[in-house]
């Protein structure tokens, strides 16, 4: 049940090592603080889950941010009504977002191609608009759903758990989750989700999903009922998105509508594409790069630019600062958009694909340039 092929096991160990040592190797990049590393892990989870749908079945959903939002709200409500422990919050988030995914997926998957994409977009927009308007009692609208000192927290009350004055913080089996605790929690969830994604990729179920992407007609005439397969993939990826949403709320106990915005759905598509659709590592790489650049670029201000260009003559310096300042800080989205375009134009297979191509080129060159190479292990 937990067995993996040797290659997959190596990947899992490599990933676990990379993720758990983040605080060390991210330090030189100035990104080794828990808040950011949590984001890395959470968005990687989101992208890995999204990839199970988009990468394997080829169905491009433009509404997955809705599930993140649903997961977030569920987690905060679990904090408010039941307990500050994160386990119930995460479990409920997965269940509720899974139920939503079941219903939304059931309808959307009756269509394919762009019609499917638009249907998911329409459903997600409905969730977003409703969260903004009628459902304010549940979502607290524009302000976002926050914890309050006088929340009932029935389970906590039953066990006599109190949080003193001030706002309570999430706990894991009684221990408070702060800073690095939060990061390691998300890191371990990421490793687990990666493992699940490996299992799916290698399984007959995953092969069936790939068959659907490759040739749906043949799948049907081969005796597969393709609808439940795609629905299962949709629900699994929706549940993982919900889990990512719950983790956002666990690490920072609030939930807002902006997490459901359709551009957020677009972002996860970009992460997956940037890294490489349908590959195991691709979505993680994509999510990390985008969140890293977002963090770096949006933090740069004109002072930093002035310093950076200070070696230039005055006139040119101010020109450079004016131009580059449009790409950083508030203008980071411009850089993001450009990245989007450049990647799709020049690297349609994503970074993982590009790396493979480069590696393949080196492999072919080696025998010609150097002495006899060491025998390559077969894939």
């Amino acid at each position, binding site marked *: 049940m937990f067995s993996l092929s040797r290659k997959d096991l190596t990947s899992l160990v490599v990933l676990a090592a990379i993720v758990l040592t983040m605080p060390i190797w991210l330090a030189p990049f100035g990104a080794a603080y828990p808040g950011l590393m949590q984001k890395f892990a959470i968005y990687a989870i989101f992208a890995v889950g999204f990839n199970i749908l988009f990468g394997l079945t080829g169905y*491009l959903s433009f509404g997955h941010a809705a599930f993140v939002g649903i997961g977030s709200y569920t987690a905060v409500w679990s904090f408010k009504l039941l307990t500050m422990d994160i386990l119930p919050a995460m479990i409920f988030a997965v269940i509720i977002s899974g139920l939503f995914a079941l219903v939304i997926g059931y*309808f959307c998957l*009756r*269509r*394919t*191609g*762009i*019609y499917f*994409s*638009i*249907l998911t*977009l*329409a*459903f997600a*927009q*409905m969730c977003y*608009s*409703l969260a*903004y*308007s*009628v*459902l304010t009692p549940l979502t607290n609208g524009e302000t976002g759903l926050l914890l309050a000192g006088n929340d009932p927290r029935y389970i906590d009350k039953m066990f006599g758990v109190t949080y003193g004055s001030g706002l309570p913080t999430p706990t894991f089996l009684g221990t408070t989750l702060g800073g690095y605790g939060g990061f390691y929690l998300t890191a371990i969830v990421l490793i687990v989700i990666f493992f699940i994604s490996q299992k799916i990729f290698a399984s007959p179920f995953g092969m069936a999903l790939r068959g659907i992407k490759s040739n749906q007609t043949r799948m049907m005439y081969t005796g597969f009922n393709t609808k439940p397969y795609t629905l299962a993939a949709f629900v699994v990826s929706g549940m993982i998105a919900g889990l990512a949403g719950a983790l956002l709320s666990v690490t920072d106990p609030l939930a807002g509508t902006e997490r459901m915005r*359709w*551009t957020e759905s*677009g972002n996860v*598509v*970009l992460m997956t*594409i940037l890294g490489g659709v349908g590959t195991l590592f691709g979505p993680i790489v994509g999510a990390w790069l985008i969140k890293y650049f977002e963090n770096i670029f949006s933090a740069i201000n004109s002072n930093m630019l002035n310093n950076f260009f200070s070696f230039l003559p005055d006139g040119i310096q101010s020109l450079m600062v004016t131009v580059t300042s*449009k790409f950083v800080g*508030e*203008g980071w*989205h*411009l850089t*993001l*958009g*450009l*990245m*989007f*375009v450049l990647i*799709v*134009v020049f690297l*349609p297979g994503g970074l993982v694909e590009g790396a493979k191509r480069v590696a393949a080129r080196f492999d072919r060159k080696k025998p010609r340039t150097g002495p006899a190479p060491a025998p390559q292990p077969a894939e």
Partner: protein
Amino acid sequence: MTAMLAQLLNGLDKGGAYALIALGLTLVFGTLGVVNFAHGALFMLGCFCAVTFRYLITIETVTVDPTKLTPWGSPVEVRTPLVQNWFGDFGAVMVDYSVPISLILAVPTMLAIGIAMERGLIKHFYKRTHAEQILVTFGLAIVLQEVVKAFFGANPYPQPIPTDLRSAADIGILLGLEPRTLTYPWWRIIYLAFSLFVIGGVFAFLQFTTFGMVVRAGMADRETVGLMGIDIDRRFTIVFGLAAVVAGVAGVMYTPLLPPNYHLGMDFLVLSFVVVVVGGMGSLPGAVVAGFLLGILQSIASMTEIKSLIPGIDQVIIYLVAVIILLVLPRGLMGRRGVMES
């Protein structure tokens, strides 16, 4: 009943905007086979053509009039737009009518933008998958809106309706109602008429010119037209330019109704895609019908009577209708079989 009628009218101009955007989207999709997520951005760029034009003609000269004094005793500064200095009263009219006049700026600008976009980026994506087309145009849309944001900032730019057109037409009288029971602002009437005019123009262009014939043939069967040795590439560029112009002028004229900001394009994009899909991918009449239909439905759903009946319906009506139509009519209202289903 009157309220219903008033909402119906209100829906018409919004429907006109939807129809114009959806028309261009469909044209591009039908002929070039490209799903253009940057089309909303073209609408937004059109809006900012109006903003730019108004900015340019209201550049003022400041003269000091020593004969008049302010309450503080300093001479009054008189600001006059340059155009008024140059053209006198005609200049003042120009400033007043800046929105419709800016069409003169918008048409060539949008044409140039459209052609540049098609030549520079879109044409490389004819043979790529729809997912890739969506992504690259989505990225382009972000770039365009951020560029606009870099120049114009994040605040909306309200544009004035020309003074003569600020009143409302009392169309209730035409229907035999009491005066002032059913009025409809002149500008909305103009917008509706304008959108019908543009829609009619596009259809006439496609129906009665050789160029249009080729385009229609291309929408029906792209490969065959390509095989007939017709220079498809050049025509594709023009079609894209045309779609950009249609979206642009739709934006220009819409500015007095909705102050444009940089993310207006994204807001309209989602809606106009829903419109296109409801109408049926690749069907021009479908796009127009669905545009007006959804505009009117949205407007009716925002009536208080209906909102109190079904809370929140005004927020979701469009999406709800889209979902229902797509589930009942797989290819939208007027879609053809086999389009975009692979």
